[in-house]
């Protein structure tokens, strides 16, 4: 799946840019350890971020709850990194039924 030579930092940068764009702030002001919701992101914004990720990381068919299970740039980047390297990604505990 990993068609590009991206590093974890590249993924993080893609995410930071995408989230900051949705939050309407400069990328430099985004704290990567803060939940997306603290920047007022809603489900539509999450959809846009998800699509950026698909484009940039060459992933498709992302789990629907990915952003909720990994709600910061840091944690999401790691989860995506694992997906790109075809490793299993555990869902967050509160996502279990």
């Amino acid at each position: 799946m990993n068609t590009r030579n991206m590093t974890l930092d590249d993924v993080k940068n893609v995410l930071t840019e995408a989230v900051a764009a949705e939050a309407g702030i400069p990328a430099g002001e985004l704290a990567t350890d803060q939940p997306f919701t603290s920047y007022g992101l809603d489900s539509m914004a999450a959809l846009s971020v998800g699509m950026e990720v698909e484009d940039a990381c060459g992933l498709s068919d992302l789990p629907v709850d990915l952003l909720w299970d990994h709600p910061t740039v840091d944690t999401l980047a790691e989860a995506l990194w694992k997906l790109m390297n075809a490793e299993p990604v555990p869902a967050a505990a509160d996502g279990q039924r």
Partner: protein
Amino acid sequence: MTDRTPTTIDSPAAPLPFVNAQQVGLWFIHETDPQCSAYHIVFGAEVTADPELGVRVREILDDLMSEHDALRVCFRPGEDGPTQWVPESVPLDIRHTDARGLDPQALRDRVRTDTRIPFDLSRPPLWRVHLYRTAERTWVFAVVMHHVAADFWSLALLLSEVRSRLEGVPNRFTLDGTAFAAYAEQQQRFLATDKARALVDGEATRLADAPPGLDLYGDLPRPPAPTYDGGSVPFALSAAATEAVRDLAREASATPYMVLLSAYFVLLSRLSGQSDVLVGTPTSGRLQRQFRDALGNFVNTVVVRGEVDENATYREVLASTRARTLEAMRAQELPFPWLVRELAPPRDPSRTPLYQAGFAWDRLPFLTDMDAFFLLDPGPGARLDVAGATLRPYPLPQQEGQTDLWIEMGGERDGAFAGVLRYNTDIFEPGTARELAATFVTTVQTLVQHPDEPLHRLARGDERQVAQLAAQGSGPVRELPPDRLPELFREQAGRTPEATALVADGEEWSYRRLLAETERVAAALRTAGIARGDRVAVMAERGAPLVAALLGVLEADAAYVPLDPKLPVERLAYMAEDSRARLLLGERSLEENRPAGLPVLNLDDLETGVIGTVAREPGAGEGAEPAAPTPSDLAYILYTSGSTGRPKGVAIPHRALVNLLLSMRENTGFSASDSLLAVTTVSFDIAGLELFMPLVAGGRVIVCDSETAADGARLAARIEDSGATWMQATPTSWRMLRDAGWDGCPRLNVLCGGEELPLDLAEFLTGRVAALHNVYGPTETTIWSTEGRVDPARGIDIGRPLANTQLYVLDPQGRSVEPGFPGELWIGGEGLAIGYWDRPELTAERFVTGLPAAPRQRLYRTGDRARWTSDGRLLHHGRLDNQVKLRGYRIELAEVEAVLQAVDGVSAAVVVVRDDRLVGYVVPEPGAELRTAEIKSAAAVSLPQYMVPGIVVLLDELPLTANKKIDRNRLPAPAVTSDATFEKPRDATEITLARMWTEILGIPEVGVHDNFFDVGGHSLLAVRLSAAVREEWGVEIPISELLRQGTIAELATLVRRGGQETSRTPVVTLREGEPDSRPLFLFHPFGGTVFCYVELTRHLPAGRAVLAVEAPGIENVGEAEVSVEGMATRYIEYLREIQPTGPYALGGWCFGGVIAYEVAGQLRAAGEEIELLAAIDSRAPIEENIPETADDATILSWFARDLAVPYGKTLDIPAEDLRALGGDAAFDHILQRAAALGVLAEDADRAQILRYFEAYLANGIALQTYLPEPNDLDLLLLRAVDEQVDYGPKLGWEALIKGSLQVVDVSGDHNSVMYPPHAAVAAQAIAPHMGAHTDDAQG
């Protein structure tokens, strides 16, 4: 009937392999209601531009239409739902209107109407443009797309694409017009995966035990099927509240959506009284990159299950909503219609499945400079310049009525969240919807300001609402005089001493006389030692002395306890004892029924003085002069029945009585020239108004004796000759008058109260009397608390509060509820009782001071549910404890009663719950002929299925209490004879329908009164059923009709009304067989019908079709055959149409076996092979077996008996009865009796009975004249061993059968052999001879 003409699609087209499940769902809704426009997605704008721009836009749209499949799709019915087609070329649908003469409002109405013109989903395009020229360079345009083919996102993509092509700049995306097909295919694959299965299991767990419906209190009774009609109310939060919502979301790691959804849950919980609330919420469905720029409908709805606890804080509710939303979102790939089918929740066709309220968060991640164009109330100033044109928003309400309630948010105006509340006009009036929107805004603002306080501590309503409620709830403030009733009466008597005060028993008393009598009574009481505060029981016949006695007790500063001599002595004794009455004021004639042990003073013998000794009240000081009486003193104690336990005494002070009398005098304008006919027993507190109000107005009381008051005809005459201008009574009494033929009285003013006023009664009274006043009030707040003139056209309300009276509609926490919300009615003010006599605990429970709504006021808790309407009327919604829940649905019994009462010929109706079923008790109007089945089907026209009483009992009259109210506790238990759980089909149409149902629903059997949706039917299966009916009879039954007429019996009526079944051959398919298998033909027995074979067929081995031949005369008059040979010749024609050549399998029960024998013989003679000839307890047609002849009446009696036999029921009508009736009357009698037993269809008429009888007679003649030759045939004979009549071991067949004659003994007698449990045995006996092999030669 829908227009089924297939669409002409000019260019060649092939169906796409898949339709996504959301589209299927919408297609079904459209099938159900082809006029539905609730799923039109609409965009409107006003444009100022040069006309050339229009030409350019048209070209662009033309290009887009041909470029993108998604814009050309249409849907046609397929076997299991819709198929999707994409014709090569589809012309644009642009509709021009010159609107230059129209004023703006007329244009708005026109556009609104045009955008709602329904689509035919089989005719593309499923989108169109309306263009209205409003000035030389100005147009209004509206784009309308059907949601089945496009979602809101698609519409925005289209707008964006048109815009960039106009501006000649490349769009930032490439529009995709084909991905929708890939989506459908991908979805199909996904739904077959284990992941999807796991998600469904999760959803089943998550939604387990959810309430079957969200019972929002509305303005209108819910119709049996939703209409999808609605309205919209725009609203906006304040900027501060918006900021608070955002902050709260951040703090809780949630989205603004979740914060607002939490407030919506609170609102819905308060509007329904439920804490467990399901809300539908749409998701974009465009989870993957490839669908982001695709045209089509991808939206999917998920159900969020919210929970509201008023003890929790808002932050806690939000945390729960957040978790629950995420749970719901995890399953968003499961299409909602598919999920509904998988979960098969209990279905009620009157509501959308699973959720009845929705919440949408609609925000586009593109086209952001057009945000204002998507708001219903965009505010002034929004504009956009595109390619030299100027666009301004032209907001159009849309997608209304999809659910009961729907809130859409996501947009912003001036930095504040704005939204729209949509409502279904089946349920809500526009004014209520406006209150709901205002309440939502207030609720959000209150909650976000106090996120850490328990909900129940926060106020409800905004300032305007609070002020409005206070104004509506307060009666006029009037200072009360310091006087008590005796003083008021004395003053009046002083003013008009010679005027007539009382008329009773033909005697007239002037005010002077009444005052004198009152004083005489008071003096005698004082002499007897009665002092201030003592209770005196008063027990007298209705008449002038009774009034003097009551007034006399008050005059003596004591309080009266009225005892109606008609009441049981135990109850009278209880009241006398409980009130600790010191004396009984009685009459000599009433000695017998008198409670023992009390000293008595007889009104008709005051001179004698007290009989017995008046005990001294403990603690009363000897010789001490009692203080002067005050208005707070006790005036009377009135006993009311509690629903449980002992009657309780309500202690009423003088002030309360005076307040009532003066306020009602004021409201009614009762004057010295008025007279009131008093009919109510003194044991009912409202009698106080009748006996005293005229006396404080200088008017006249006409006392009606209790015998006349209880007899409609006599009372009507009394009203007429009394000259009364007023009368007060319960609805039950007014109904009694109506039923007695009373036609009103133009001079009479009516006070009606004590029970809910039925609309039909109000309609009857209005126009027939001078004025109708509805009055309401519990005994505890003194006779009445509200009064109002009734205008039936506005519905029934309970009027306005009386003077010095305050009304509150409160929630369980004691807060005033907003207008439109349900609550409990509490009453405060001067009318309040002192309390319950000697019951301090009960008093403390029902009379409460310190509620949040009125912290310093003492209020009485009525136990009645009420609602303020948006225009300030107070509606009464019955007793709180009279609300029932059946199968999870809340049912207002009063609502069901109102519908039953409105049925033609129904005088009164009461509905109760017995053994988890609704039972309706109905009293027919005099002379009306009512059938319970008709009442039920009439009720089903306007009630949801779950509210239609399963049992209807006809009564001559309803049991009443002494106060002339309906006594629900004394209704008889319903006989469960005719409403047995399972009813068999009764004619060929019903048999065929029942077969279709069992096949479609996959269930072994079905009763003719089972509702399709109760036994597992859903919309997809309904389409199949509709198709099967069309195939069989050529009758079109729209699915909407199926929702309303959902039982086999009802459908059969529709089919028969369709009128095309008469042309078909009389061969009824009892069971379909496998292709290429030979059917088993069964021939009708004596009488010609074939339902006797339904049970047998169920037990015959599967694989081979079972067809039954009915006598042609059953359906068509004049076609009865009178010879067995003739029958056989004719039936062979039918057989050969189905199976042209042998070998044939033939059989029949009773006479059917004889026909089979003849058919077999004729077929054999024609060279055909007979595979099987079976006769079930058929007696051989030989001389010895010929039945005796009988006269017509006897045969008619047998005929009636045989009608009921197949149903295991008995219909014995002696021949002599029928002979006495003669002719048509005899047939009508049989018809009536048979229908009552349920053995004939509800719509059976005399013509049908006549046809049945003709066939029966013809069969009889045929049998008597049929003496065939022996034949070289084999016969399988089943002999019913329990049959009493002996026809020999082989029933005589040995004389006719030259081949092998095999006799198998089976259980049962001649009749029961065909019915459970014996039919299974008969089937077993036949089974080995049916070897379910296929025949290659066939077909």
